[in-house]
């Protein structure tokens, strides 16, 4: 298989796809078929969709614990379906926080399920607004180690 040529074709296809506003482009190479598609996802409920996207460079587990890709940054996610309540005073993006700080809680069936930082760090992103419904696995905060 001539990979350089194939990859160059994919690059051009993908660029063309974006520029021309095409939805899809397909390449066949030996017994492989390579398809480049613009993502047109089914519409997620707006209340939820915003926070679901996993940040580009982060890796995380979905049980409220934190996993590390590079040591640089981790994402805290909701384990419970419910309403997220940001702790007062709310942490802002850029804030440096201590270990085990309660950043928010997810209220589910009247129970407060706290979301805590697992180690000290800086808040890279706050993905949710106070009072917003959240689903299982939804990203809440990104924390950068300091």
């Amino acid at each position, binding site marked *: 298989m001539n990979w350089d040529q194939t990859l160059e074709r994919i690059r051009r296809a993908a660029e063309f796809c974006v520029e021309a506003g095409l939805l899809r482009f397909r390449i066949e190479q030996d017994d492989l078929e390579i398809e480049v598609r613009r993502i047109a996802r089914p519409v997620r409920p707006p209340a*939820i969709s915003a926070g679901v996207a996993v940040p580009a460079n982060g890796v995380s587990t979905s*049980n409220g614990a934190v996993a590390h890709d590079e040591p640089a940054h981790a994402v805290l996610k909701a384990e419970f*379906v419910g309403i997220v309540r940001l702790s007062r005073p709310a942490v802002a993006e850029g804030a440096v926080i201590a270990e085990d700080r309660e950043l928010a809680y997810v209220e*589910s*069936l009247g129970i407060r399920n706290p979301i805590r930082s697992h180690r000290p760090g800086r808040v890279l992103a706050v993905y949710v607004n106070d009072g917003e*419904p959240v*689903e299982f696995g939804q990203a809440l905060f990104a924390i950068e180690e300091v």
Partner: protein
Amino acid sequence: MLRKILIANRGEIAVRVIRAAHELGIEAVAIFSEADREALHVRNADEAYCVGPGPVARSYLNIPNIVSAALISGADAIHPGYGFLAENARFADICADHGLTFIGPTPDVIQKMGDKATARAIMHDAKVPTTPGTGILNSVAEATAAARKIGYPVMLKATAGGGGKGMRAVRGPAELEHAFATAQAEAEANFKDGRLYLEKLLDRPRHIEVQIVGDTFGNVVHVGERDCSMQKPSHQKLIEEAPAPALSKGVRSRLHDVAIAAGRAVKYTSAGTLEFLLSGDDVFFMEMNTRIQVEHPVTEVVYGVDLVREQIRVASGEKLSFGQRDLVARGHAIECRINAEEPAQNFAPAAGTLSEATLPGGYGIRVDSHAYAGLQIPPYYDSLLAKVVAHGSTRHEAIVRMECALRETHIAGVNTTVDLCLAVMRDEGFRAGGVPIDYLPNFAAAVAATGS
């Protein structure tokens, strides 16, 4: 009428219930596991909430997250589908505690029918014929005495049982002690309830069930019977039909009468099914399923009624939209379950990606499915991909139509039950009608042996 329903299920039944809700102008909220993010029910719903990771205990059985999703979405009711939480009285109670309508019968009825010994006792009182048998047995000695009285062979059963677990056939007194110990241990391990009872073991019975629907005004009607004798070795049904073939008029009307009596006895509200074993012309109550069943479409097609719609209407406090007199069977319907599994390997589930999912259509064909080309089948759930229903003016026409439909069913990427169902449609024994419940295991084994 309800305004917004959360469907606590996945797969084809979630798609089915979403459609019924939409047709009534009701919003539909889906739940899904992380393994089901691309599932069809998620796309077809108005909103969808992830409730946990793939394994069912943490997602589709995750009661707190499911109920919380219903509450934050503003749903006023939950439809459980079948399986998962459908016959969980505690879940129905929790729904009520949170002001959510559980679309099904009352928790009390679910509870009573879920305990097999209790259900038998209630049916016995309602003059519903039950297999000769006992109540809860406290010892092997009690079991030995009872078995002698009933006559061998007998079946030892766990009162909390299901899915063939905690069941032992006993051919003679020598086997009893060992069977009692193992069934008890299995029931204890699976259901945390080791209580057993005995029933007469019938010789090659047929499985006939009667669909009933009741409302909160005390109306209970039957919607005819189904023959579900074509079962896998696990007793999971593979092919169902309505009406049941090779049934005398007398037996048929007895089944219907008995089902109505049973439904009235428990003041049944919603759709439910009375399962019977038929031995010769004798009818014996086996158990009641307090949910919509997988095979409900054959009844819908033959009677021209939408049973899921009726469930939702009844849960909304409406009267049944039909009386017994409105319900007339037209023709014959057969359902084949297209499962992602390998019949030749004892129906082991097949995981993988559907590279093709071209389903049949046209005159007299109904398809209920969540399958599409590209779907990755998660390993956590049951293997049902599609239900193909053929409706004909006669049973023969339905069989031929099904045969043609199965030939036009192109599923690739995983093994399926399509070819086995096709072989059954061409089988003289099946075509004659009235096969017993051990028919399919033998047939499948023979097909596997010839490699065809």
